[in-house]
């Protein structure tokens, strides 16, 4: 079986985000990018399935420009066998559905039998793409999975469904599984892997190569447009209490209860 891992690059979680000139996007010029952390769990799960010889091959699927190659190479360095980068001027401005169409087409083209993705990307936090990919392919889908077992043509997935309740979902492959934190501990690359990854060719597929109608993706196919971004309100300055300790404690408790409303 071939596992496809949907992998997106996002701004590093400690970056300071600036809004670009248009007011409807991010100024990425100074941003340090990294693999979306939830996608790292998806990748690790795929690599473990390969290590266990359940999967034959792990292929990374990324919608993105050439600036995302470094992240793809990072995934290759950790042990993914192949990667395809999905890039076309027509993809610009895609909403979640557009991205899902591109990924679904790539998964089909590569003969993927299981798609692993992060449960959400930490930049947009939409959590939509994996479900849409599943719908487009007509495959079953389980979200927020933190444990997965495969057995022949079927899977068993564990998920946290809130309030400490755990769901166990079974189904048949092919399927789309989206990964939660705690599923595994992502591995580091090996130095040798880094060297090998440098030499791998990463094919780029455009809309034509994927058999996609350009009007169904990108801004042309988008049902959602982003109109306006704004900075969150500036945090009010902190307060430093002074005086005797017992009275400061009292004041602190009052403030936490009445002002901060955290008690």
């Amino acid at each position, binding site marked *: 079986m071939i596992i496809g891992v949907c992998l997106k690059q996002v701004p590093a979680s*400690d970056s300071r985000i600036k809004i670009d000139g248009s007011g409807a996007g991010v100024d990425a010029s100074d941003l340090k990018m990294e693999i979306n952390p939830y996608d790292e769990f998806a990748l690790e799960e795929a690599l473990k399935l390969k290590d266990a010889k359940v999967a034959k091959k792990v292929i990374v699927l990324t919608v993105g420009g050439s600036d995302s190659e470094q992240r793809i190479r*990072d995934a290759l*360095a950790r042990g993914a066998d192949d990667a395809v980068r999905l890039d076309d001027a027509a993809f610009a401005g895609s909403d979640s559905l557009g991205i899902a169409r591109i990924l679904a087409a790539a998964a089909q083209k590569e003969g993927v039998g299981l798609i692993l993705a992060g449960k959400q990307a930490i930049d947009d936090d939409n959590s939509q793409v994996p479900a849409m990919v599943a719908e487009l392919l007509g495959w079953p889908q389980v979200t927020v999975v933190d444990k997965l077992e495969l057995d022949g043509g079927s899977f068993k997935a564990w998920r946290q469904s809130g309030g400490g309740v755990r769901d166990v979902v079974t189904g048949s492959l092919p399927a789309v599984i989206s990964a939660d934190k705690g599923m595994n501990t992502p591995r580091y690359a090996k*130095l040798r892997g*880094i*060297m090998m990854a440098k030499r791998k060719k990463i094919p780029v597929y455009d809309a034509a190569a994927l058999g996609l109608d350009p009007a169904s993706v990108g801004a042309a196919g988008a049902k959602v447009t982003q109109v306006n971004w704004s900075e969150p309100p500036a945090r009010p300055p902190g307060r430093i209490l002074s005086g005797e300790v017992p009275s400061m404690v009292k004041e602190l408790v009052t403030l936490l209860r009445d002002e901060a409303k955290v008690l």
Partner: protein
Amino acid sequence: MTDRLPLRDLQFLLEDVLQMKEVLQEGPYADHDVEGLRSMLEMAREMALEHFAPIADAMDAEEPRLVDGKVKLHPAAGPALQAFVDAGFVAAPHPAEHGGLDLPFAVHQCIQALFAAVNSPLLTYAGLTIAAAGLLDVHGSEELKAEWLAPLIEGRFFGTMALSEPHAGSSLADLRTKATPQPDGTYRLKGDKMWITGADQDFSENIVHFVLARLPGAPAGTRGISLFLVPKLLADDSGEYTVENDVRVAGINHKMGFRGSVNTVFSIGENQGAVGYLVGDENRGLHAMFHMMNEARIGVGLCAAALAWGGYRHALAYARERQQGRPVSLRDATRPQVPIIQHADVRRMLLEQKAIAEGALHLVLFSAMLVDRQRVALAAGDQAKAASVGLLLDTLTPIAKAWSSDHGLRASSGAIQVLGGSGYTRDFPVERLYRDNRLNPIHEGTNGIQAMDLLGRKILAKGGGMALMQALQDAIDRGSQEGPQSRVHAEQLSKAVETVASLTMGLAGVAQSDGPEVLLANATPYLHLVGHTVVAWMWLEQTMVAERQLAAGTGDADFLRGKLASARYFYAWELPKTAVWASVLNPVERTPLDVHADWL
């Protein structure tokens, strides 16, 4: 947020100043490119912060213990080292034919700097193993290599270096451990070793000791020392390493710092004698060890520089946060206090640390790159080039070791000072970094021994003085064609070089007229004098690149201005100190020579 281990500091040196891509063009390193190496450094940084840094305090607080004759390390040490091994950091510097990656030495030193800056004692186990594998690869027989090389390179077995003895530290010529040949071609060793790092631990499958010992009838002194491979565990009939060799840790040394790396009194062959195998030729053991000496000493200089750097980054972060006092011009107690970095005296302390740490890192990486350039020249069959690079390398090595550790320690102390009272507590790592760094002037040849090696052997006997002068002159010539600050520093450096040149000529005369005793009496100030001159050269090189990048508008302007400020600091505050050292060298100031032991 202040980055604790900014890769940019290393990349600026490696890529922009030292032009690493030149050694990647052909020969042994041609499989690498700058981007791939950058990814490796990124990974090393992440791993250092995630695996090595968090356990450094605990490893310091809970020293290794001897339980039933076996060393028990802190339980977190093994898994962290395993992660280091699994990533390929032990294998990487070795040749591809043995499963390595032919990683350039300078790059591997950068990788080690990231780990050393946060947890040097832990890195030491891996460092010894890499050195042991290198020693075996160059000097071992094919048969020995077939059995022992792969497990060392794969990091399944760890290595140690057992040279020192209680009465033979600086003077290895006096070592007494005996090796007796056996009919089967092996040897039985007996002797007491001292200060042996990692002679036992509980995480590797086996330990391979490289032991210096004497054969029966061997000549006295250094020409009668041979090198032996002595395993902790020998193979049984089925090839499993289960048979205990006759070696034993007799005690653990309780050290000031570097506590995470176990240092032992090591007893060899108390019973029937320990089984050992000869490595290389009889009586050529010290020669084989010294073959690795440049690398080993650069490694110590690197560790010292990295600890200074790690402490500086900590002090910098603290100084940006800690609120205390107000500017002298605004002593109004109703105004809020300011971060201490706003006080000039605190910035002075930070500049001192930065100038030392980044200067030492540069010197060490420059020397490491000479190792690489020498290998590239040898691979291309260019013996003349290899020899000239080698001479400069031999000359800089004692400086890289001793200057970085002496002055690096000053930086480590400065980091404590920036933190004030907090710096003196164990709630912050700077006191540990200081204690760890205090080792570096002592081991791998004390700095006193390095100074004599520099002046007596490298500069005068081997003609390294000329090689060094040429390299300095070349930098001065280039610097005087560059931006305004470079031109000023080139001029200042040129004066310092004149001083070094005339003093060295004078000392050559002293060697002729008064003999080595007088010549070497003040070797230590000579090393400081030449060391400061060489580090000023390094800062000139950094200035040239920083000025060029600022003029071109490439690179981070604040970072580059910081480089220029550090260079100015070094030239204004440090280089003038050479006058004091010069004053006791010409003529040789005789108080230490003449003072009687009874008077002290």
